[in-house]
């Protein structure tokens, strides 16, 4: 009995370690390349270590420009997304109106439509409206990817705020607006924060659509990656990858407990 138990423990441990290696291996391997002078197959360590590639990236105007573009566009996208979607999320979460469920299903269906196909048809629209190669075009394209996050997660959070908490505030003398501001919004805030972070990442990482709409005029960091992979040494791509991951890593720190707390999972259920 004890031997079997020990064996099971070892099995579980091995499986867990294998999974972690599977997840972390590629990232660490790529990360190591960012500081390597060169790499000889089949060595497991670089020939030498350097920060040369970092200087190269920051000195390259195209690369630095892409970083700036990304950092500029993404917050705008998230902001617009929040302004458009949060009222809708509140309506969906709080009111039942005819077609509410249809709307949810429709949105899900639209989300099931392959993005690249959506971009293809958007491209048609953008040609007609002269939005190809413009910042507005990219903003719209990136906006599309954020809508699902920005609507569903907050909607379920709004729905989860107990009515009695709002009524207690009304009874205490607060107007509807004050109740929304001080009670409803506050209680939904962690989920909204998660939605904002997910939207930020979705927008920041969006490549296909931005490439289609933006190239060759405007490059964001991810679309620049496509070019990098083909035209630069692997170490530059590695450096750029690390830079591209920085916002994500910062946001993990902010959002970890909420996301792991299952808020995300809850957000994706139609009620």
């Amino acid at each position, binding site marked *: 009995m004890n031997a079997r138990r020990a064996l099971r423990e070892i099995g579980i441990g091995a499986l867990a370690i294998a999974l972690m290696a599977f997840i972390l291996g590629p990232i660490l391997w790529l990360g190591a390349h960012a500081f390597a002078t060169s790499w000889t197959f089949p060595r497991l360590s670089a020939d030498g270590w350097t920060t040369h590639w970092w200087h190269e990236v920051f000195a390259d105007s195209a690369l630095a420009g892409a970083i700036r573009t990304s950092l500029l566009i993404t917050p705008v996208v998230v902001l617009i997304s929040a302004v458009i979607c949060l009222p809708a999320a509140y309506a969906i979460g709080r009111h039942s109106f005819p077609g509410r469920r249809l709307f949810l299903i429709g949105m899900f269906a639209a989300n099931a439509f392959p993005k690249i196909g959506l971009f293809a048809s958007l491209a048609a629209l953008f040609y007609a409206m002269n939005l190809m190669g413009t910042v507005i075009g990219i903003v719209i394209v990136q906006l599309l990817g954020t809508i699902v996050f920005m609507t569903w997660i907050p909607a379920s959070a709004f729905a989860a705020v107990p009515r*009695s908490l709002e009524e207690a*505030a009304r009874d*205490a*003398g607060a107007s509807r607006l004050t109740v929304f501001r001080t009670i409803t919004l506050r209680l939904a805030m962690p989920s909204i924060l998660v939605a904002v972070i997910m939207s930020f990442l979705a927008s920041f990482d969006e490549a296909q659509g931005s490439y289609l709409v933006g190239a060759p005029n405007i490059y964001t960091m991810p679309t620049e990656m496509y070019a990098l992979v083909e035209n630069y040494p692997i170490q530059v791509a590695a450096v750029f990858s690390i830079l591209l991951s920085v916002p994500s890593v910062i946001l993990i720190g902010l959002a970890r407990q909420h996301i792991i707390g299952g808020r995300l999972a809850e957000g994706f259920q139609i009620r």
Partner: protein
Amino acid sequence: MTEGTTTMADTTPGLRLAALTKSLGGRRIVDSLALDVHPGEMLALLGPSGCGKTTTLRMIAGFLSPDAGRVEIAGRDVTALGPERRPSAMVFQQYALWPHMTVFRNVAYPLRVRGVDRHEITRRVDEVLALVHLTHHRDSRPAQISGGEQQRVALARALVQQPDLLLLDEPLSNLDAKLRVQVREEIRTLQRSLGITTIIVTHDQDEALSISDRIAVMHDGRIEQVSTPSELYARPATEFVAQFVGSVNSYEGVLRDGAVRPGPGTIAIRPEHIEFRLEARDGALPAVVRSVVPRGHFHEVVLEREDVTLRAYMTGRIPDEGTRGWARVQQALRYRDGHLQEVVEGQA
């Protein structure tokens, strides 16, 4: 409708409901309800679930607007006002404390939204927290304190508004039995000393009987009776009240020579008004003890007589099952068409 205490008749009622009516989902929940609550009085709205008491309370608080009728608080018609503009404060059933605020901030909220000066807020909140003995939990979050303490925070949040009318929605239903008695007494003491007109909604007759000055029993959207607790128990105006408040043996027929005989109307006999002894006497009929169930400080004894089977509450020496003796009805309530005709007293 109201009775007793005529001395209050010339003063403005603390709360007046006039012809209050509300239908929800095609069903009439509250049906032209009228009620006067005296200033400083604690009135219990008692009834089974679904009787309309919660709907009534929500109309008083302003969360529901009535289809017809009026709500007046301290002489002022507030029917058209939203909950935030009514001089009433409510303690919610689940307390409805805001989890993202400390105890202090929860209690301070009503004053903050009214734009009260900061020092004034601190003074008044600390005062009311001292009143409910929660000063040591001033900076705790609702999740960190016990159910009884949460209840007191909810009460403090209502009291800090210095309301003309305090509304308690099943305030004790989430507490365990022992705490319930304690909190109930605290609420009563506090309400008395502050002299706030108070409505307490409950489905628990013990709670209603022990805490309130008067009780309004609701049934099917109407008020069946408004009386003091002892009056309500001694003279239940309708059959429903008799059955809902306390416990009764209820039979079709009339009481003749101490026996239930066929006849028009209904006879209701409280279990404590049945006397069982071994010896025969006036008005007593032969009876056999069928079962004995201990119920704490008394025993529930089922007695079989030739006319009816009676449930009796007995204290002192309890007979064994199968004992033969004589059972007598000391007092009975006689109803015609559901309404009280008379209280029939047996011979002492």
